[in-house]
C-alpha cells in the first residue's frame, strides 16, 4: 500500500495543517481512512490527502544554509506592531 500525508482544516477560511500519514491503495481509500482515523472528534471541516511521494523535502544537511541566515533578521518579525484587541487567527 502507498503512503499518504493527511492535512485537515478545522473550519472554512483556515488553512490546512498536516496531521499525520496513513497507508491506502488509492485516493478514495486514503480520503476515507483519513476521515476515520483523524476526524473522530470533530477536528475537521475539510481534508486533503497527498501521496507522500509527491512531497519534495529539504535536506536536513542544508539546514544551516537554508535557515540560519534568517535568525539575525529580527526586523522581519511583526513584533513592532500593536495588535488591536479582537483580531483572531493572526
Amino acid at each position, binding site marked *: 500500500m502507498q503512503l499518504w500525508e493527511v492535512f485537515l482544516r478545522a473550519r472554512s477560511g483556515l488553512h490546512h495543517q498536516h496531521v499525520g500519514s496513513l*497507508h*491506502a491503495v488509492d485516493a478514495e481509500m486514503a480520503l*476515507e*481512512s483519513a476521515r476515520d*482515523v483523524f476526524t*473522530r472528534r470533530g477536528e475537521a471541516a475539510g481534508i486533503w490527502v497527498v501521496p507522500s511521494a509527491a512531497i519534495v523535502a529539504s535536506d536536513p544537511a542544508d539546514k544551516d544554509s537554508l535557515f540560519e541566515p534568517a535568525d539575525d533578521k529580527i526586523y522581519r518579525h511583526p513584533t513592532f506592531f500593536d495588535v488591536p484587541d479582537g483580531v483572531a487567527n493572526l
Partner: protein
Amino acid sequence: MCLMVLPTSDQAPLRDVATVADCCLIASHRLAEWVSNAPSMEEDVAIGNIALDLLGQARGLLSHLGDEDQLAYFRDAVSFRNPVICELPNGDFAHTMLRQLFLDVWLEQVWRAFAASDDEVVRGVAEKAIKENAYHRRHSSSWVVRLGDGTDESHRRMLAALDELWPYCWEIAVDGWYDEVVFVLNTATLPTPAPPHADPQQAPRVDHTVHLTELLAEMQSLARAHPGASW
C-alpha cells in the same frame, strides 16, 4: 412494544423498530470483533467507528422500547428479531464488507422510512442515522468494488462471500434493494444473482442460527455475571 411497519414488497416481511434495533446491535457486535484484526490499522479504526455508529442507533431505539440494558443483555436468542444475516459469524474481510453493503442498502431505506415516522424519538434516531449510514454505505461499497474488481484472489473471495450470503438476503430485500445492490455488484465485476425470495426450498427458514446464541453468550456474559454493574 411499539410497531412501526415499513413499506414491504412480496419478498420482504414486515420490519419494525425492534427488528432494526436488534439488527444494529448484532451487526455492531460482529464488526467490533474485527477491531485489532482488520487488514490494516486504518481499517481497524474505520470498522470501530461504524460499529459505534450502529451501537448508538441500537441504543436510541432500544431505550425507546424499554430498558436498553435489559433488552440487550437479558434476552435470549429466541426473543431477538434481527435478520439472520446479521448474526452469521465473520468470515474473511470480503465477507464482512459484502454483508455490510447488503445491510447498509437495507438500512438506508429503513432510516428513510423511519424519518417520516409520527414517533418523535424514532424520527430523531433516523435523522441522525441517515448521515451515518450514507458514510457506511460509501465505505462498504467502495471495498466491494475494490475487492471484486481487484486481484484474482480478492475476486474469488468476493464470489465466495456472495454465494454464502445471498440466501439470507430475502429478509432484507425491500423494494429497490435488489437494483441498488446489483449495481454495486456489477461495478465490482461480480455476477448478477437472481432476485432473493423466501422460497422455503431455497432460503434458510430459521428464526435464528446457533451463531446468535454463541454471540449473545459472549456479549451478555459480563452483564449477567454482574447484574446492575456500572463503570
